[in-house]
C-alpha cells in the first residue's frame, strides 16, 4: 500500500480528477455513496484503490512510457510520487477464461498481484499461478529477440529482420487470399482477437484457423449440444446450493470460475447462517474439491458415467422427473458406490431447486448431458445454475481441430503455419506427431514467451509480450470482459497475438491499445465511450459485458443416446488419468520457480510430478513409494516415479501433466516426467496402461512426511490429528455449539509470574477457519510474493529446508482407501509467551507492544535455538545465501518494503508488519482510527474463501475479536500456555445422515 507520500500523491492526482464529471460518475457508480466517503477517511483503502486506478487513468499512456517505467526516475513525471505503491486493474487469461487482477506497482515496477474485488471471477482473490505471474514477467529466460531456425542452424534476429521477412510474406499471403495459411491458436476469449479473426477471414478467406488447448472443457460444450442442441456453458451459483454433487469435477480449484465458486461454497460452510451445504464428490484422484467434500467416493474415471446413471435412477426413485431412458442404472457398481449414489440422490431430491450436479472436463459428453438433464429435472436452472451462450460456441473441439491441422500438414497443404502461443509440439496428442509435422510447413512462426519446444520446431520464434506488458482483453467464464492493461514497458520487446493477426490481415497496424479500444465489448455493439473505457480500465471489468442467461430445455431425443453410452464399462487394466497440475497447469508455468516449489495440495510434493497411486493398488502392483515405474499403453511408454497417496481410486494412476519439459528454461527443464506421450487424441483424459515397477528409487521432495514414515510415527500422527484439527458434525454443532469448547476446554494454566501488560494501542490477532480452508495454496504464494521469500530448489526441499512462511498442513483421517482430508494453514502463531524469544541469546526475536513476535534480522546471529523451541516449527532458516544467483531482472520482483534476508538468518511470518505499519502511518497522519479490516496480510487478502481473518483484538467489536470468542475457536497446542495470537476455527463436516462414510 502507500505511505505518507502516497497520500499526497493521491490527493494531487485526485485534484486533477475530482473535477471531471466522469470521475464523479465513476465514483458514484462504483462505490455507491463514496462521494461522502471521500470526505470520510474511514474507507481509505477503497480510496487507494480508486486513486491507484485513477493514476492509471491520468496517464494511461504513461503505462507505456518507455524507460521511466524500468529505470529510476530522472525527472519526476506529474502525478507520480516515487516509492509509492499504486494499483492498476488488469486481467490474466488462462485457457480461455480470465480472472481480473489488481497489480501493485512501485515506480512502474509491478511487484505484487492480487485479485480484483470488482471482478466477478475474482472477488479479490487470485489463484497461485496468477499471483506467480509477476515472477514469470521477470523471468530472465524469456526470449528477448526473434529466432530464426533453418536446416539445424539457429540465429538470433532483430525485430527489423523479422519484419523484413514478415511484411512481404504476409503481403504475399494476402495476395494469394491466404492459401496454404494455417493459424494454430491457444484458446482465447479475447473479443478483440475474435473481431480481428473476422477481419482476417474476410481478407484471407482460404486461411484456416485452428485451436489447441491441452486442458479444455470441450466435453462440457459437447454435452450441452447433446442435451440442448445448443452451445451453452453452465455458470454454477453455489451460494444458493444446498446439495452439490461433483462428478470428477474439481469445482473449487480446477474450474475457470473456481475462485468465485470457492467463495460461495465456503460461505455456507461456517455453520453460522443456520444452514450448511453438503458436497458429494466422486473422483479418481483426490482433488481440492474432493478434500472439501462431505462424502468423497474414490472411483475410476471410467466408472463415473455408471455412477451418474445410478444417481439418475436414484432420483427417479425419489420421484424426480427423470426421462424414461434414464430411470434404470446403466450397470451395477460396488457397494460403496451404490451407497454413495443412493445418498446423493436422496439429498438431491430433498433439496430440489437448491441442488446442483456438475461434471468435470475429464468426463465424456454424455455425463455432462446427463448432468444438464438432471439439473433441469431438479429445477437447478435459474437457481443454482444458469446457462449462457458460449462466446465461441460453434467451434469444433480442440482435439478435432488439432487433428485436422495435423492431417493438412501431413498432406502438405500448409505453406505457412502461424502458431499463436501455446506449446503444441509438447502437449498435442502424441499420436498426431505434430512436433515433426510442423516442419512440413514451408514457413512456421511461433509466438511465445519462451523459446520452447514448439519454437524449436518452427522457422521463426517471435517473443511474445507478457500480459503485464501488453494491451488485450478477454472474457471471464461468465462472459464478463476485462481490459488487460500493461503495467510496464515490454522488458524485451515482444508482440501480442493481436498485433500479429492485425499485421497479417493487413489492417493498418495500430498500437494494440487502439485495437482493444476499438472493440465493442459491452454488448452495445459499439466501442466503449471515453467514460466507459476509463471506467473499464479502472474497475477492470466492462460493465454489462457479462453474458445473459439463456433459456434452454432438454431435447426429448437426448436422453436415449446418453443413457446408451453411460453403461460403457470401465474395462480391465489400470486406468491412467491425466490431471491438470496444481502448480504448472499444463506445463506452461514450468519455468516459474514459485510454482515449482509450491507443494501439491494433496501430495505435498514439490519440483516434480509423479504417478499417484493408492496404497492398495500399489501393493497389488508391487510398487513402492518413490519407485520408478514404467507405464505402457500400446506401443507408447513412459517412466515415472510412483507416489503412494491415500484416496486414489482402486486400479487408477493419476498422471499430472506439464512436467518433463525440455525447453522450458533453466528452472523447468528436466523437472519431473513428461506424461504427454501417453496421451492420444482418442483418449485425451484417461488411458489403460500396464504398470511395471523398475526397482530404481527416485527422490520425491515433499514438504510433509519428509521421509517414509514408520509404524509408530503413523500411529502417533493418527492419535494427534484429532487434537490438532478439531472437527464437528454440523448436525451436532447446530444442536449444541458449545460442545466443541467444552470437550476441548482450554484451562488457562497458572503462570509463574505476572501477566505482561501490552502497551500498544492495537493487539494484532488472526483466526483461520478450517471449515472454510480448501487447501488451495493461494496464501502460500501470496506470502512468498509479498515477503521476498527465497526459492530453495528441490535438493534443499528434500533436505527439509523449504522457506514458506505459511504452510498448509494436510492430514488424512480414516482408512487409506477412503480417507477424510483436512487442511490446516500454519504460520507463526505470534504467541504471547513466545517460546522462541526467551531462548535467543542476542534478543533477535522479541515482542512488540502490539503483540507481534518480531524477528530482528540484522540482530540475528543464527543459533537456530528459537526454531528448536518453537512448538509449531514455523521458523525458517537461511542455510545458504539463497539470493546469490538472483539476476537483476528477477530482483525487480522484490517488494521494496520487505528486507531481503541474508545467509545465516532466521525468518518467519511477521503478520505482514509492513502492511500494518503503512496503514498505521497513514491513519496517524490523518488523525483517524484504523477501521477494522483496513489491514489485511497478503495471505488473508488472497484467500478465496476468506478463511483467514486479521485484526485488532483490543477492539472487542472487530471481526477477529468476535471470531476469537467464537464457539468454534480453539488454539493449537493450547496446553503449552504459549498463548497464541492466532486461533483456529474448528472444521465442520456435514455428512448425510443416510450414508455411512463413503
Amino acid at each position, binding site marked *: 500500500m502507500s505511505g505518507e507520500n502516497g497520500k499526497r500523491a493521491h490527493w494531487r492526482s485526485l485534484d486533477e480528477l475530482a473535477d471531471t464529471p466522469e470521475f464523479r460518475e465513476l465514483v458514484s457508480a462504483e462505490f455507491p455513496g463514496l462521494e461522502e466517503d471521500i470526505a470520510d477517511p474511514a474507507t481509505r483503502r477503497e480510496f487507494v484503490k480508486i486513486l491507484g486506478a485513477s493514476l492509471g487513468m491520468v496517464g494511461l499512456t504513461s503505462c507505456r512510457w518507455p524507460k521511466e517505467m524500468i529505470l529510476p526516475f530522472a525527472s519526476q513525471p506529474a502525478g507520480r510520487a516515487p516509492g509509492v505503491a499504486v494499483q492498476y486493474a488488469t486481467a490474466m487469461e488462462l485457457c480461455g477464461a480470465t480472472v481480473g487482477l489488481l497489480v501493485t506497482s512501485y515506480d512502474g515496477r509491478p511487484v505484487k498481484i492480487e485479485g480484483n474485488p470488482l471482478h466477478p471471477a475474482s472477488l479479490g482473490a487470485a489463484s497461485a499461478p496468477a499471483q506467480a505471474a509477476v515472477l514469470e514477467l521477470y523471468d530472465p529466460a524469456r526470449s528477448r529477440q526473434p529466432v530464426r531456425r533453418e536446416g539445424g542452424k539457429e540465429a538470433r534476429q532483430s525485430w527489423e529482420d523479422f519484419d523484413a521477412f514478415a511484411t512481404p510474406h504476409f503481403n504475399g499471403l494476402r495476395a494469394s487470399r491466404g492459401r496454404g495459411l494455417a493459424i494454430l491458436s491457444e484458446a482465447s476469449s479475447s473479443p478483440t482477437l475474435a473481431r480481428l479473426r473476422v477481419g482476417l477471414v474476410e481478407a484471407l478467406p482460404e486461411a484456416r484457423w485452428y485451436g489447441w488447448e491441452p486442458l479444455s472443457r470441450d466435453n462440457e460444450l459437447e454435452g450441452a449440444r447433446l442435451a440442448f442442441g445448443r452451445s451453452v456453458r453452465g455458470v454454477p451459483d453455489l451460494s444458493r446450493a444446498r446439495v452439490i454433487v461433483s462428478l470428477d469435477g474439481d469445482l473449487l480449484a480446477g474450474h475457470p470460475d473456481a475462485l468465485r465458486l470457492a467463495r460461495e461454497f465456503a460461505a455456507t460452510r461456517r455453520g453460522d447462517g443456520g444452514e450448511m451445504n453438503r458436497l458429494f464428490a466422486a473422483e479418481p484422484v483426490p482433488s481440492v474439491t474432493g478434500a472439501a467434500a462431505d462424502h468423497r467416493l474414490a472411483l475410476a474415471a471410467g466408472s463415473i458415467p455408471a455412477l451418474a446413471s445410478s444417481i439418475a435412477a436414484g432420483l427417479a426413485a425419489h420421484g424426480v422427473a427423470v426421462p424414461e431412458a434414464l430411470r434404470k442404472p446403466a450397470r451395477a457398481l460396488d457397494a460403496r458406490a451404490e451407497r454413495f449414489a443412493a445418498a446423493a440422490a436422496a439429498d438431491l431430491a430433498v433439496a430440489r431447486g437448491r441442488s446442483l450436479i456438475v461434471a468435470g472436463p475429464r468426463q465424456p459428453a454424455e455425463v455432462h448431458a446427463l448432468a444438464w438433464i438432471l439439473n433441469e429435472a431438479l429445477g437447478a436452472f435459474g437457481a443454482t445454475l444458469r446457462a449462457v451462450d458460449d462466446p465461441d460456441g460453434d467451434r469444433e473441439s480442440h482435439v478435432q481441430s488439432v487433428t485436422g491441422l495435423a492431417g493438412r500438414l501431413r498432406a502438405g497443404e500448409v505453406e505457412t503455419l502461424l502458431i499463436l502461443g501455446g506449446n503444441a509440439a509438447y502437449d498435442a496428442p502424441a499420436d498426431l506427431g505434430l512436433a515433426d509435422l510442423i516442419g512440413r510447413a514451408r514457413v512456421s512462426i511461433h509466438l511465445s514467451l519462451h523459446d520452447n519446444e514448439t519454437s524449436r520446431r518452427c522457422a521463426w520464434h517471435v517473443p511474445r509480450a507478457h500480459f503485464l506488458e501488453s494491451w488485450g482483453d478477454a472474457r471471464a467464464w461468465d462472459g464478463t470482459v476485462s481490459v488487460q492493461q500493461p503495467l510496464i514497458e515490454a522488458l524485451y520487446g515482444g508482440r501480442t497475438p493481436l498485433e500479429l493477426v492485425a499485421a497479417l490481415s493487413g489492417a493498418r497496424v495500430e498500437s494494440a491499445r487502439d485495437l482493444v479500444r476499438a472493440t465493442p465489448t459491452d454488448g452495445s455493439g459499439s466501442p466503449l465511450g471515453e467514460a466507459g473505457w476509463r471506467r473499464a480500465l479502472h474497475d477492470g471489468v466492462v460493465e454489462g459485458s457479462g453474458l445473459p442467461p439463456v433459456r434452454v430445455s432438454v431435447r426429448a431425443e437426448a436422453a436415449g443416446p446418453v443413457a446408451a453410452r453411460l453403461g460403457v464399462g470401465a474395462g480391465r487394466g489400470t486406468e491412467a488419468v491425466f490431471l491438470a497440475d496444481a502448480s504448472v497447469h499444463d506445463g506452461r508455468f514450468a519455468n516459474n520457480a514459485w510454482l515449482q516449489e509450491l507443494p501439491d495440495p494433496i501430495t505435498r510434493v514439490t519440483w516434480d510430478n509423479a504417478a499417484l497411486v493408492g496404497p492398495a493398488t500399489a501393493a497389488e502392483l508391487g510398487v513402492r513409494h518413490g519407485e520408478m515405474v514404467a507405464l505402457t499403453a500400446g506401443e507408447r511408454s513412459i517412466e515415472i516415479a510412483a507416489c503412494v497417496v491415500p484416496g486414489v481410486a482402486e486400479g487408477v494412476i493419476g498422471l499430472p501433466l506439464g512436467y518433463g519439459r525440455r525447453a522450458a528454461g533453466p528452472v523447468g527443464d528436466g523437472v519431473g516426467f513428461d506424461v504427454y506421450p501417453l496421451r492420444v487424441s482418442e483418449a485425451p483424459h484417461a488411458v489403460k496402461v500396464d504398470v511395471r515397477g523398475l526397482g530404481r528409487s527416485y527422490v520425491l521432495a515433499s514438504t510433509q512426511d519428509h521421509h517414509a514414515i514408520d509404524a509408530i510415527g503413523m500411529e502417533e500422527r493418527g492419535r494427534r490429528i484429532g487434537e490438532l484439527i478439531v472437527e464437528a458434525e454440523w448436525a451436532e454443532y447446530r444442536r449444541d455449539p458449545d460442545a466443541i469448547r467444552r470437550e476441548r476446554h482450554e484451562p488457562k494454566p497458572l*503462570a509463574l*509470574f*505476572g*501477566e*505482561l501488560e*501490552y502497551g500498544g494501542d492495537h493487539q494484532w490477532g488472526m483466526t483461520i477457519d478450517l471449515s472454510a480452508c480448501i487447501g488451495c495454496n493461494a496464501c502460500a504464494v501470496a506470502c512468498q510474493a509479498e515477503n521476498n521469500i527465497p526459492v530453495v530448489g528441490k535438493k534443499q526441499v528434500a533436505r527439509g529446508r523449504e522457506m514458506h512462511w505459511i504452510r498448509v498442513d494436510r492430514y488424512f483421517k480414516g482408512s487409506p482407501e477412503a480417507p477424510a482430508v483436512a487442511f490446516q494453514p500454519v504460520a507463526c502463531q505470534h504467541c*504471547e*509467551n*513466545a*517460546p522462541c*524469544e*526467551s531462548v535467543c541469546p542476542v*534478543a533477535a526475536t*522479541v*515482542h*512488540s*507492544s502490539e503483540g507481534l513476535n518480531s524477528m530482528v534480522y540484522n540482530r540475528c546471529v543464527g543459533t537456530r535455538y528459537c526454531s528448536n523451541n518453537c512448538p509449531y516449527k514455523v521458523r525458517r532458516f537461511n542455510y545458504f545465501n539463497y539470493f546469490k544467483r538472483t539476476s537483476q531482472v528477477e530482483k525487480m520482483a522484490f517488494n521494496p518494503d520487505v528486507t531481503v534476508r541474508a545467509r545465516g538468518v532466521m525468518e518467519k511470518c511477521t503478520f505482514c508488519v509492513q502492511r500494518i505499519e503503512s496503514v498505521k502511518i497513514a491513519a496517524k497522519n490523518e488523525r483517524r482510527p484504523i477501521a477494522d479490516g483496513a489491514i489485511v496480510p497478503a495471505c488473508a487478502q488472497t484467500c478465496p474463501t476468506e478463511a483467514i481473518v486479521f485484526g485488532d483484538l483490543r477492539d472487542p467489536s472487530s471481526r477477529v475479536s468476535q471470531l476469537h470468542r467464537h464457539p468454534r475457536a480453539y488454539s493449537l497446542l493450547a496446553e503449552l500456555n504459549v*498463548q497464541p495470537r492466532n486461533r483456529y476455527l474448528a472444521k465442520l463436516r456435514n455428512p448425510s445422515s443416510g450414508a455411512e462414510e463413503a
Partner: protein
Amino acid sequence: MSEPRLSVVAEGPKLYGLLAEFDSVGKLLAAAERVREAGFTRFDAHSPIPVHGLDEAMGIRPSRLPLLVLGGGASGLGAGLLLQWWTNAVDYPFMISGKPLFGLPAAIPVTFELTILLSALGVVGGLVVANGWPQFHHPLFASERFRRATTDRFFVSVEAADPRFELETVRGLLESAGASHVEEVED
C-alpha cells in the same frame, strides 16, 4: 671482628647467606626448628615437596588468601546481578516471552559463574603477589647443589641480612642439625 676482615668482606662479593643441605624430611624439620629457636627470622626452608609441620617448625603465620576469595566472590556476585539487571531491565528492556524484565531464577547461573570466576582469579592473583612472582633471579639459584631442591634434596638457607647472623655460629648450628653439606651463597 677485625678491620682487614671487614675490608675483605667489603671488597669481595657480598654474602647472601648460608645454604645447608639435608637428605630427609625429618632432618629438614629438625633443622628448621633449631634455626627458628635460635631466634633467626630471615631464613627459609626449601623442599621438592610440601613438608608438613614445616610451617609450624618455621613459625609461618597462616595465610590470608581466604579473605581474597571472599572479596572476589562478593564482587563477582554483585557484578553478575548488577550486569544482568542493568542491561536487561534498565538500559535496553525487551518484552520477551511475557517474562519479567529481570527475574532472579534466570539470573542465577551467570551470577554464580561470575562469583566463582572472580574468586578464583582472586586466589591466584593473591598467591602470585604474595610470593613475589615472577622472580627470575635469586642468589640461591647460583648454587649448583640447590638445583636438587626441586628434585630430592632439602635445604635450609639463613640470610646474612639477619641481625643475628654470624657466619661461623650459623654454620655450626646447621651442621649440628645434621646438614650433609653447608655452603656460602653470594649475593
